[in-house]
Each structure stands twice: as structure tokens, then as C-alpha cells.
């Protein structure tokens, strides 16, 4: 009994002593506010949700350890529905109404391109975690924009480097019939020709195509040993499901720009054998990634997807920058971020001062069946060094 009462007295004493400290903490240190306008509904909704989950997870873990610079972090997430004009309005809201000077989000590149010209006026720093458009670190570069993620040209570059070392000789390409499909295939065509291989033909399916039987017949007949696919969403799922039914994969290697877990989940077995670039997947090697995946599983019960990982990396870049600067003021944070180097879940990431692109490795994965996983998973098959994957400063093309 004495022991117990002694303990309570000590605990009481401790609490009394500590309380003024807690109080001062709460009054003196304003939270670090981060605005996150991103597409939570509409075509980019699934990606936007991943980005938000990634940011929330980081904030939760930082706040649990007492915050950043001793200050708690608060997130102001807003839905833009993937519309650039809405993105600008929501960004303005979080900056002017909520007082955020740090921004995440802008799910689509079109949203980011609309927002970046306003950053200087708002005196805000924006750390991108998913924007692919090469222009953001090229012709549309602004000093307050940082890209922590792999850009679109860097993903295509990884595929191109892989082609040079792979055994395929004759290529076919199938894309969705709009700007993205046609652009990506024209870049791919150039890369095939540069590597001295044979490009047979390209074909484009209208958006919303349900029956891919004829496209599959054409790919079979072409004699190609590999086919590059630039399809997304329902079209991608329908093609993969039907290609599997025709056993197309037995004859032709299917390549794709980005491999993500959602489409693997939607088509299951039909995704097996698919090869593509990957910005992030939970199977990447390294201690940092293993820890991240384990913590994520504990919190959400499943493995993190592409943009959850990419967002985590962007958060690590921001955290390193803030710790280095000791401040979140744009004028102090900017130079600190420009020299940040972190050991990320994707390996070493170095922020570059000349165009604010995170210099990082490129990855190629193959979808395989693995013991212990309900769905097939992407497995790393090739890694390319950062200096080969990252374009020259403010460039989006590669000389060699």
C-alpha cells in the first residue's frame, strides 16, 4: 500500500511540474500548417486519396514524436475534383484563409501548372509528390516549386534504358486515342529507333473501348515480340483481361508505362508477366522501405501503393528541409531544401538546386505471383542509376 501511494504522489508531483511546460508549448508554438488541394473525386480521385493517406500517415507519425521543430503539424486537405481552376481557388483558400505557407497535393499536372505561377505572390513552398509533367522543372519552373517524385520523362527513360538491355527486337504499340496515348507512343517509337531495334506499327483504340479482340489479333499477327501499352483505367483492365483469355502473353511480352496495384487488383492473374516502370512499389529493397511498409501495414492493414510511397518520400524531403532550415519561412526553407539529401524508401534522393528536381534512381518491375499475397505483386527486375534517369537541368529530353 505504501508503495502504491508513494508512486501516485510522485506521479502527481511530476504532473504539476510539467503542466506549465505543456501550457507554454501550446500557446507559444503555432502548428505547422500544410495545405493540400488534391483531386479526391473525379478521374484522379483514387490517386488523390493515396496522396492524402500518405501525408496523413506522415503527420501522424511526426506528431506522435512531438512534432517538427517542437511544433505539431496540421493538414488542410481540399478536394479539387482534378480541375485546374478549382485547384487554384482551393490553394488560395488554404493560403489566405487558413494561413498555410506549405503546400502538398495538386494531383494532376494540369493543376500544378495552374498553381505554380502564384507561389511567389503567396510566399508559399509547394512540394510535389506525383506531378509527372516535365515542364514543371523545365520551361514552367518557379523557385518555390520542388519535385520530390519521379517525373513522367524519368519513367519513360527507365523503360527506354531497359529496352536497350532486353532481348526484344520487334515492337508494336497500342495506345488510347488521345493526347497522352499518342505522345507517349511517339516518345517510345523514338527510343526504339535510337536503340537500333525495329518498330513495326502503332494502333490507337477509342476511349471506352470494350472489345479488344481485333487489337489482340493485330498484335499477334504483327510478329512483334513485345508490345508497349499506353492504356489506363477501364480500357487497361479490359485489354489485360481479354489478352489473358487469348494467351497473348505467351507470344508477346506486354510492356507498360506505369505498373500500379489498383489495376493488378482489378485484373488479378491477367496482370502476371506485365513489365513496366514503377515510381514506387512496396517490394523495393532497403531498410528504409522495409520499415515504412511494416509501419504502414500496422496502420492500414495492407501494403502502400505507388502514390502513398511517393507522398511519404515528398514528406521526408520537406521534413529534412525544415529541420535543416530550423524554420518554415520560404526564404530560409528554399535554400535548405535545395541541398537536401535523404535516404529514402527509394534509395538516395538528392534535391538539385538548378531545377528543384529530386535526383533519384529509375526502376523496372515485373508482375509476378508470390506466396503469401492474394494478388500478384510487382517485383523489381532492373534499377537504373540516378544520373542516367534524371534529365539535364531544366530539360525533359535526353541526348543519348
Amino acid at each position, binding site marked *: 500500500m505504501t508503495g502504491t501511494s508513494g508512486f501516485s504522489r510522485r506521479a502527481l508531483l511530476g504532473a504539476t511540474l510539467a503542466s506549465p511546460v505543456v501550457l507554454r508549448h501550446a500557446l507559444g508554438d503555432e502548428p505547422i500548417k500544410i495545405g493540400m488541394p488534391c483531386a479526391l473525386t473525379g478521374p484522379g480521385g483514387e490517386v488523390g486519396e493515396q496522396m492524402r493517406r500518405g501525408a496523413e500517415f506522415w503527420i501522424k507519425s511526426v506528431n506522435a514524436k512531438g512534432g517538427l521543430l517542437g511544433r505539431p503539424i496540421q493538414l488542410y486537405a481540399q478536394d479539387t475534383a482534378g480541375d485546374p481552376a478549382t485547384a487554384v481557388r482551393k490553394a488560395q483558400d488554404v493560403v489566405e484563409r487558413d494561413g498555410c505557407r506549405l503546400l502538398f497535393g495538386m494531383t494532376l499536372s494540369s493543376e500544378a501548372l495552374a498553381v505554380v505561377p502564384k507561389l511567389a505572390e503567396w510566399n508559399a513552398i509547394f512540394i510535389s509528390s506525383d506531378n509527372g509533367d516535365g515542364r514543371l522543372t523545365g520551361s514552367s519552373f518557379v523557385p518555390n516549386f520542388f519535385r520530390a517524385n519521379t517525373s513522367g520523362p524519368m519513367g519513360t527513360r527507365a523503360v527506354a534504358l531497359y529496352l536497350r538491355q532486353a532481348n526484344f527486337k520487334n515492337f508494336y504499340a497500342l495506345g488510347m486515342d488521345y493526347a497522352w496515348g499518342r505522345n507517349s507512343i511517339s516518345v517510345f517509337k523514338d527510343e526504339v529507333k535510337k536503340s537500333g531495334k525495329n518498330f513495326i506499327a502503332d494502333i*490507337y483504340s477509342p476511349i*471506352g473501348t470494350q*472489345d479488344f479482340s*481485333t487489337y489482340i489479333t493485330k498484335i499477334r499477327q504483327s510478329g512483334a515480340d513485345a508490345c508497349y501499352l499506353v492504356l489506363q483505367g*477501364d480500357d487497361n483492365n479490359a485489354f489485360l483481361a481479354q489478352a489473358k483469355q487469348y*494467351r497473348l502473353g505467351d507470344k508477346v511480352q506486354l510492356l507498360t508505362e506505369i505498373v500500379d496495384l489498383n489495376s493488378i487488383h482489378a485484373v*488479378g492473374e491477367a496482370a502476371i508477366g506485365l513489365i513496366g516502370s514503377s515510381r514506387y512499389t512496396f517490394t523495393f529493397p532497403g531498410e528504409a522501405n522495409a520499415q515504412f511498409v511494416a509501419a504502414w501495414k500496422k496502420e492500414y492493414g495492407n501494403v502502400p501503393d505507388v502514390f502513398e510511397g511517393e507522398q511519404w518520400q515528398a514528406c521526408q524531403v520537406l521534413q529534412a528541409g525544415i529541420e535543416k532550415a530550423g524554420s518554415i519561412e520560404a526564404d530560409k526553407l528554399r535554400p535548405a531544401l535545395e541541398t537536401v539529401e535523404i535516404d529514402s524508401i527509394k534509395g538516395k534522393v538528392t534535391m538539385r538546386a538548378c531545377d528543384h528536381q529530386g535526383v533519384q534512381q529509375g526502376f523496372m518491375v515485373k508482375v509476378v505471383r508470390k506466396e503469401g499475397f492474394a494478388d500478384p505483386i510487382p517485383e523489381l527486375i532492373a534499377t537504373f542509376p540516378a544520373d542516367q534517369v534524371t534529365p539535364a537541368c531544366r530539360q525533359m529530353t535526353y541526348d543519348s
Partner: protein
Amino acid sequence: MDFLPFLVTQCLNALSQAALLFFLGCGLTLIFGIMRIVNFAHGAFFMLGAYVGYSTVHWTGNFWTALIAAPILVGGFGAAFELGILRRLYGRDGHAFLMVTFGLTLVMGEVIRLIWGVEALQVKPPESLSDIVFILDEPFPVYRLFLAGAGIVVALVIWQFLERTRLGLLIRATSQNAEMVHALGTDVRLVRSAVFGIGCGLAGIGGVMAAPLVTASLGMAPNAVIDTFVIVIIGGMGSFLGSLIGAVLVAFVQVFGTYYFPDFALAFMYLIMVTVLVVRPGGLLGKEA
């Protein structure tokens, strides 16, 4: 690939696609024939069929159960919708039906999103149909053969149903002169409910059968509904045989058009529709021609 195997496999591809289009077009045209309304929600019933199919396969592990459960549930829901809401609108002009069925499309889309989520869902064909057969040395999926066969069987069943059964007779009679049928002592309203239910049920079967090809997804409704309207317009609104011809025609044009003129395949489909409308404004077998 030689020409003969190519021709045979392409024709089979077209037939399997025609079967799916027929499930949709036939229901839409039956409903129009009896009720003189265009069911804008037809694509949504097709999508609902795919999702109900997904859940049935998920729970029972059996694709065949899904093929029975989906048309019953989707058709039942369609009949209930007719009884509860559409029935009140028959005195009004066509705009009311357009608004209500279009509204139903939006509501069903949202409800499906809430229940099943935004991600596309995988429906596997049954084990016995997921193999391939070699036709003149070319591999061809058994499931597509099954689709083509199912299309032929269902077309025969509906034809016999319309020609041989009492309800079929009433349906044909109602589509010709509803007032006369009513005057002869038949409750036309019940015929209407039955037809709306059957039409939606057919869309439901189509949804289950399409799911292994395209996955169950929220994009199904808009993607499917346009082709269906084209079929019904080509075949003639209200004509059962017309919807069959329309489905086969559109499927063949899509399959062979995509092969020979990939950039114009869609245009061909509409070109046929325009030609038919110019030559026979009521469609190939339509009444107003």
C-alpha cells in the same frame, strides 16, 4: 496467320460481341415497343448486373449462380421501378420518362459507387470456360465461344417466348394496339411491368457475361449505352428481329472495321446508322418506315 483461320476467328469474335450487344439492344427495344419510352437507365441496369454478378461469384464462388441471380435481381428491381415510379407518368409526354430514367442512371451510379467502391472489380470466367481451343490452329478463348452460343440460345428462347406463349402474345398485341388489348379485358399495366422487368433482366445477364471481359466498373454504363442506342436505331425501335440484326451488323462492322481501318472503325458504325436513317427513317424493321 492464314486468311481462313483469320476469317473464322474474326467472325467468332464478332458473334461473341454481337451476343453482348443483343442482350442490351433486345431489352431496350422490347421496352420501347410496349411502352413507347426510351429507357435511358438501360446501361445502368447492365452495370448493376455486372456488380450483382461480382458479389454472387464472390459469395458463392459460382459463376452460374450469378447468371441466374443477376437477371432475377436486376429484372425485379426494374419491375419494381416501373410499378413504383414509371407507372405514374404514362399520362405525361416523353420528356418525363427521359428525365426520370436519366435521373435513375445517376442515382444507380452513385449507389453502386457507395456499395462497391470506385475500383474496378475482377470477375473470373468459370474454370470450365477459361481455357482456349484451337480453331484451324489459332487459339481462341472458350469463353467467347460460350458468349456467342449463349447469344444464339437466348435469341431463340425470346423468339419462341414471343411467338408461342400467352404473355408473348399479349406483349405483341400490346405493342400493336394497347387500347384494344385493354378493352378485351387484359390488364395492360401488368404487361408493361413484366416487359420492363424482362428488358432490365436481359441487360443484367449482359452485365454478368460482359464482366469477365471488361471487369465490373463504373465506366460500363456510358460505354455500353451508346452502342445499344445505335443498334436499336438501326434495327428499328420496337422490333425484336431488328435488334438482333442491328447487334450482328454493328459487331461485324466494329470487328472488321477496326482491323482494316483502325482509325475509322467508330465512324463506320455511325455511317451505317445515318444511311439506314436516310433510307428507312424508322430503322430496318421499324414500324414508322
